[in-house]
């Protein structure tokens, strides 16, 4: 699992880290509660969620935008003991916790688990309400960063983050630029009942798992060119996209279940939901996945049909797509969606080139 995380430190710093880890482990084991111990960061699949994705802070956000920072923090402090309501990432976090429970049953001393970190720009005084809310729902979130307004990007790296979810597109773009899988979360208009025994994650293909190289062809040369190109290059793997490593991390955890004969009941299920069609351009995608040694449980080729209705049937805890058009379609029908702001898809909306305003200096 450690290949997923960078390892570029000198040996003296590494031994200091090992000491820190041993001390933290001992401290947790000595606690009288039977709270599960957070996993070793190097071995874990670390998911960082922002406060607004974990909790519904719409009302509070409004106060911040209309009345400013001081009033916002004062409000949060006044309501400190009132738990916040769940946000879009909440079901995903509960599903991750559920997988952890099952992993711990099969592998008691294992560090290859999901690790959920709260990564927020909020001031530490607001943090008290966040901690109280986490306590209220008994979420296993033992690590957090409250940066008091500073950029979280450096901290994402310091916490060895595998996936970052935020409501702020700016931060997500910065994270992706730094090579961290990230997506902007959207709350669906209606709530769907989601599985509480299986984590279900759906991915778009191009510009999410794969690079946007083929999407560029579609946008600039049209569908026919795209089909010809994909058929011609069927056996050449696509380059990887921003969420490929996250799929890889899910795959490693899935294999732990397979090793214990739990393939049929595996509590992690992955879906590919792509506008490609199986006949003409689908083969390249499947072959690419195979060349990466990655599996996806279900591959759904829509041949251009809208994704919303299909996702409604799949009911994933999260669905990643690079195009806002698909995100909108999905959230309208109740799917919790996350936009991956990567690639050529950001310059287009519904097939038309968006006029880019002149960038401010």
């Amino acid at each position, binding site marked *: 699992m450690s290949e997923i995380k960078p390892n570029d430190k000198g040996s003296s710093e590494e031994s200091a880290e090992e000491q820190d880890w041993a001390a933290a*482990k001992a401290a947790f084991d000595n606690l009288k509660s039977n709270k599960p111990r957070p996993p070793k960061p190097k071995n874990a699949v670390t998911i960082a969620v922002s406060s607004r994705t974990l909790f519904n802070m719409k009302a509070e956000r409004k106060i911040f935008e209309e009345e400013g920072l001081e009033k916002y923090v004062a409000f949060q402090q006044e309501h400190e003991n009132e738990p916040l309501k769940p946000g879009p990432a909440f079901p995903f976090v509960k599903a991750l916790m559920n997988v952890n429970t099952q992993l711990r049953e099969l592998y008691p001393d294992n560090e290859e688990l999901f690790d959920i970190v709260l990564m927020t720009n909020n001031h530490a005084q607001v943090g008290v309400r966040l901690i109280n809310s986490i306590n209220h729902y008994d979420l296993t979130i033992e690590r957090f960063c409250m940066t008091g307004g500073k950029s979280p990007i450096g901290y994402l790296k310091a916490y060895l983050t595998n996936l970052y979810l935020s409501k702020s597109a700016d931060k997500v773009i910065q994270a992706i630029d730094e090579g961290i899988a990230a997506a902007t979360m959207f709350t669906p208009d209606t709530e769907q009942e989601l599985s509480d025994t299986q984590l279900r994650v759906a991915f778009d293909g191009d510009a999410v798992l794969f690079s946007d190289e083929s999407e560029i062809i579609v946008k600039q040369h049209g569908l026919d060119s795209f089909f010809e190109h994909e058929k011609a290059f069927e056996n050449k793997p696509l380059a990887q996209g921003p969420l490929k490593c996250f799929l890889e991390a899910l795959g490693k955890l899935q294999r732990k279940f397979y090793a214990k004969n739990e393939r049929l009941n595996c509590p992690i299920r992955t879906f590919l939901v792509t506008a490609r069609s199986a006949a003409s351009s689908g083969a390249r995608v499947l072959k690419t996945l195979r060349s990466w040694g990655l599996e996806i449980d279900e591959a759904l080729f829509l041949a251009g049909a809208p994704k919303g209705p299909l996702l409604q049937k799949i009911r994933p805890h999260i669905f990643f797509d690079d195009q806002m058009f698909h995100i909108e379609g999905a959230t309208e029908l109740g799917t919790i969606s996350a936009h991956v702001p990567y690639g050529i898809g950001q310059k287009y909306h519904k097939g038309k080139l968006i006029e880019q305003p002149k960038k401010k200096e």
Partner: protein
Amino acid sequence: MVSTDQKTDVKEKEADCPVVVAVTSHAVFESGGAEDPDGLYVGGIAFPLLQALQKVNERLLKENPAESLLFDVIVITTESQQQQQSSRITESIRHHGLKVSRFCFSNEEDFIENLLNNNVHLFLTTNRNEALQGSQKGVLSVLLDEHTASCPTEQLRVLFCGDAVVQSEAGPALASKQAAQSFSAQIGKMRGRFGLFDSPISIALVTSRGGRESCGDALRTLRSLGVNADEAYCLAGVPRGPIKRLLRPHFLLSECFSSN
């Protein structure tokens, strides 16, 4: 301005005393007594720290020209060789534009007495032995290291360590808890003079071993001292090197929390 809780409001009605910070000449100037072409000392590890303290004072006075809760900076020599360099030290300080209210030209024998006589609230040194001696006499003593040299000059960054582990390589073991708590209360009060945004002081809390409860408890402990942290990081075993490099604190305090 952020309002702190009832207790500190009552205290604010009395005139606030200045926060006396003593820094050794070894920390202020480059070790080995390096000199520039004019024969004056070159700035050392504690330089950015002094500039940051000065910045805080400037901003405090801007908010309230009659402010009495200011940093009162003393430069102290702690050994005889430096003790004899008094004029060069004062000249160098003036040359670099640093505002120092007093100089204490002591040596190894009597510097501790001078710290006590001057009612020093915080003693900053690059010498572990000196820090230990200071703590043993009940003076809050903090060891500065090379990281302090690369800290910002525009904002004073104070890091509270909620569990002793983070502090272990830097600080002495016997620092007086009471001295630490009263200094922290002063810092908290100073922080309260500014708003949440654009403050010349920033207070961060780090817990390195425990989970969210231990960090939550540390936040509440700080609050009870009148300190409202701006930033909080709960590591629970995450490697602390990269975090410390991002935080860039001028100095670390850990004695406020009960030692386990």
